[in-house]
């Protein structure tokens, strides 16, 4: 056990930030083909017409990483991961609604 304190600045992965395909691949540790497959499943949706111009927001990094973890840990395939992500986001939306209205 070792204790270490260091200071660092955080970057928020939200809609207001933009990444190239290369940066998304690097963040996820995968080849471009994997991200292209994810685009096909609607897991991530870049802005821009050609691969060179593709720009992804911070949410895309989160979704791509989650899809990869679901695949690796639970043995689901990519369409299954896409479905799980959509359902999880729906649950999150309902959870927020419940929080807001004080139901929980």
């Amino acid at each position, binding site marked *: 056990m070792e204790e270490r*304190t260091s*200071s660092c*600045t*955080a970057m928020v992965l939200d809609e207001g930030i933009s990444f190239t395909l290369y940066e998304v691949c690097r963040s996820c540790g995968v080849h471009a083909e994997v991200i292209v497959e994810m685009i096909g499943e609607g897991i991530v949706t870049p802005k821009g017409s050609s691969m060179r111009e593709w720009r992804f927001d911070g949410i895309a*990094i989160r979704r791509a990483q989650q899809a990869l973890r679901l695949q*690796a840990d*639970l043995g689901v395939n990519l369409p299954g991961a896409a479905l799980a992500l959509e359902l999880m986001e729906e649950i999150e939306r309902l959870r*927020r609604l419940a*929080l807001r209205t004080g139901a929980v």
Partner: protein
Amino acid sequence: MKFRDYYAILGIERDATQDQIKQAYRRLARKFHPDVSKEPDAENRFKEVGEAYEVLKDPEKRAAYDRIGGGWQAGQEFTPPPGWDTGFEFSGGGFTDAGGFSDFFEALFGRMEAGRGPGPGRGFRAKGEDHHARIMVDLEDSFHGRARTVTLSMPEVGADGRVHTRQRTLNVRIPKGVCEGQRIRLEGQGGSGWGGAPKGDLYLEIRFRPHRLYRPDGRDVFVELPIAPWEAALGGVLTVPTLGGKVDLTVAAGAQSGQKLRLRGRGLPGKPPGDQYVVLKVVVPKATTPEARALYEKMAQQFPVNPRAALDV
């Protein structure tokens, strides 16, 4: 070191078939997967379940574990009997991504992990592993963009090739206006790279501690404002708490319970900033004195109203 009951962790009998073990694992892995579950200890439960499965799915490891015997209770102080594993051949299979197994696992099967490579990784990169964690912060931290000290436990592969848990404390400036569920990335704060490659990144998922007054929804903030019946009926200027301090809110005459008033831009900061919604809640004082009763009775005569007219009663 505490004994771990892998059968109890998976909720199965000691004579469960390999199929039953797999089914139990799959079910619990889905339930406690940190991306899926919102339970605060989901990550630990997921790791525990993964560790139990790592042992029980492998007939060799399961046989060795069973040989220790069923006499142990979970949590009991445990030292492996000398030579407990003699006569068992380990094929060294079973690589699990999660890493960071318990001391108990390490003591029994640790030597198999020693031959492990430079840590789990997918694909081509030699960059260090990315780490993920969930942190609890206060709404005020997001509103003001305060620096917070967070303590994280990270599994790390040591020089001996074994996995150790390392505690570290990070001073993180919580970005102004960050919302519940958003991820923040701290570059170079993940696992060590190898072959001179850069370190991985640290991803933190933001969760807000429940607040005494405010309920966040994205950048918007909701607050319930109790008001007296005459304040609702007559209207007036009421003082309302916001994250940025007290503000005056004008309530029009004839306000009702449940009515939602908006304070533009008084939510979490951002472009655009969130709003604060004030939800009115009329609080009716009890008629505890004869004078109060008389007042209410006078009101009943003065306002011959049927509030349930729309219910046809």
